[in-house]
């Protein structure tokens, strides 16, 4: 049973979530007794791509044509479905991301495959093909069978602890018929925060709510994030009020995060907010109201004023 892992590159490197998908894929391939191929689209050096081997890959197919330079959903999905056909993939795996959702979706359409997203464990292949996935934005799990011939799964972050080897993978250029990848759209402008940690990928997140009082008061939170090397996030009202950019909004209607550590500053812990952060390993809540519902979902809590507590935390991190 051949396994294909669809990966994403950022600034010429595998995203951490993609390394997790490669590692997961190698375990699935071992389990079903098949080979695994890794597909990487975009620009990266062979040296970087061969690092897929650290996480269990032996072969990386690299597609890097001119019109694959920017995130092109139609072209990427075409490359993915064509590759799935050429390697006779029976299981196609990716890490969940908003781009991967859009790309995997079209490949699912092309291959008439069943897809299960937000998978949290290795599949059970003892009788059919079953995966456990998170549903209701983290409020429950469902064991789901995939009955189609080709099976697609999108895994959540932190599903398996990564184990690294010193093996490296061979990298093969994938020649794609770029002529058939019709230009259905034109990118006008890309606006991207630079020098910050990507939120969906982050292991550490510092997040602020309405208790931060206003955009001009964000510095203490940014200082802690910087000291930790953490990504910054916010609650929905904060992005609705334009205190922080929209891509920082976490929750049921925002980014879903699963870091090792989520520090909530002045966030009440509404159920829709918790839905986006409840997969975090450790949750810290700082709130001046001891009755704030977030404390019920927290591992560590501090009842206090964020503007008093945050500088103390930053100082303690710097002293580590």
């Amino acid at each position: 049973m051949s396994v294909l892992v669809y990966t994403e590159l950022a600034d010429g490197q595998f995203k951490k979530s993609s390394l997790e998908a490669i590692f997961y894929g190698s375990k699935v391939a071992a389990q079903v007794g098949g080979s695994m191929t890794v597909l990487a689209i975009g620009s990266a050096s062979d040296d970087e791509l061969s690092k897929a081997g650290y996480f269990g890959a032996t072969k990386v197919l690299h597609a890097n044509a001119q019109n694959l330079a920017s995130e092109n959903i139609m072209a990427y999905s075409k490359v993915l479905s064509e590759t799935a056909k050429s390697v006779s993939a029976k299981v196609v795996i990716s890490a969940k991301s908003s781009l991967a959702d859009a790309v995997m979706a079209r490949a699912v359409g092309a291959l008439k495959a069943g897809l299960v997203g937000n998978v949290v464990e290795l599949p059970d292949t003892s009788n059919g093909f079953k995966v456990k996935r998170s549903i209701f934005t983290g409020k429950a799990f469902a064991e789901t069978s995939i009955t189609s011939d080709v099976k697609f799964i999108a895994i959540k972050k932190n599903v398996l602890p990564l184990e690294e080897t010193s093996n490296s993978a061979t990298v093969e250029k994938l020649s794609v018929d770029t002529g058939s990848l019709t230009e259905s759209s034109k990118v006008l402008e890309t606006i991207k925060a630079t020098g910050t940690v990507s939120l969906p990928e982050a292991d550490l997140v510092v997040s602020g709510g309405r208790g931060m009082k206003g955009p001009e008061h964000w510095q203490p939170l940014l200082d802690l994030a910087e000291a930790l090397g953490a990504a910054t996030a916010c609650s929905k009202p904060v992005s609705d009020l334009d205190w922080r950019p929209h891509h920082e909004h976490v929750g049921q209607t925002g980014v879903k995060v699963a870091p090792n550590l989520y520090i909530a500053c002045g966030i009440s812990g509404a159920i829709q907010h918790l839905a986006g952060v409840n997969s975090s390993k450790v949750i810290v809540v700082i709130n001046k109201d001891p009755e704030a519902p977030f404390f019920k979902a927290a591992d560590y809590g501090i009842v206090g004023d964020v503007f008093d507590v945050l500088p103390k935390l930053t100082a303690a991190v710097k002293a580590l």
Partner: protein
Amino acid sequence: MKILVCISSVPDTTSKISFEENDTKFSKAGIQYIIGPYDDYALARGVELRESLGGTLTVLNVGLADAEPQIRKALAIGADDAVRIDAEPTDSFFVASEIANYAKDKGFDLILMGRETTDYNSGVVHGIVGELLGLPSFSPVMELKLEGNTATLAREIEGGKEKLEASLPLVLGCQEPIAEWKIPNMRGIMSARTKPLAVLAPSSAALTNIDKYELPAPKGACKMISADDAGALIKLLQTEAKVL
């Protein structure tokens, strides 16, 4: 302008989730259903475009009869007519095939829906519909403007957004701030009662099946640290929780 908006009917975001029949079935008892929050953004933008450009807006739901209050609400907000494909929406490919089968010969300029549903969160129906219909698809779309046959849209990317231009027809998975949720007014609610709602039989089959549900293990107690000694937290995160 001919617009199709696909909506899901999902448990209210504050719902307490539980299961029955030996954890093989979602328990609908006491659950308040709403239009999927992301679909609600798609609907709001669809209604704005329909109002400013004319044409028609059809709302489609793949769901059982218990989704009809949500469909009527979409009609009250401004859809002209509705279609319900009479089946439990259990699987992404199934729902997408039903949408594509319905839409394929209708000549829609825009097919809008949410980026994902808030019950199963797979976030792929838009893309599957796009592929099945041979139309470009984009998601998550946070801005959408139309000028003639050209759409200018912004897609959220990690850490920012990408603005692009594409020609209609398109399939879009939407999210905020594409528009603000709309609340139906009295006139809308009255007129929704008589707007057409067609019920059609499904024509495809699911490729996945849920065997069993499970609730997460309850969270342990929260360890409190005094604000005066806040720095002690960092040591605990390093030595006890081992996350730093």
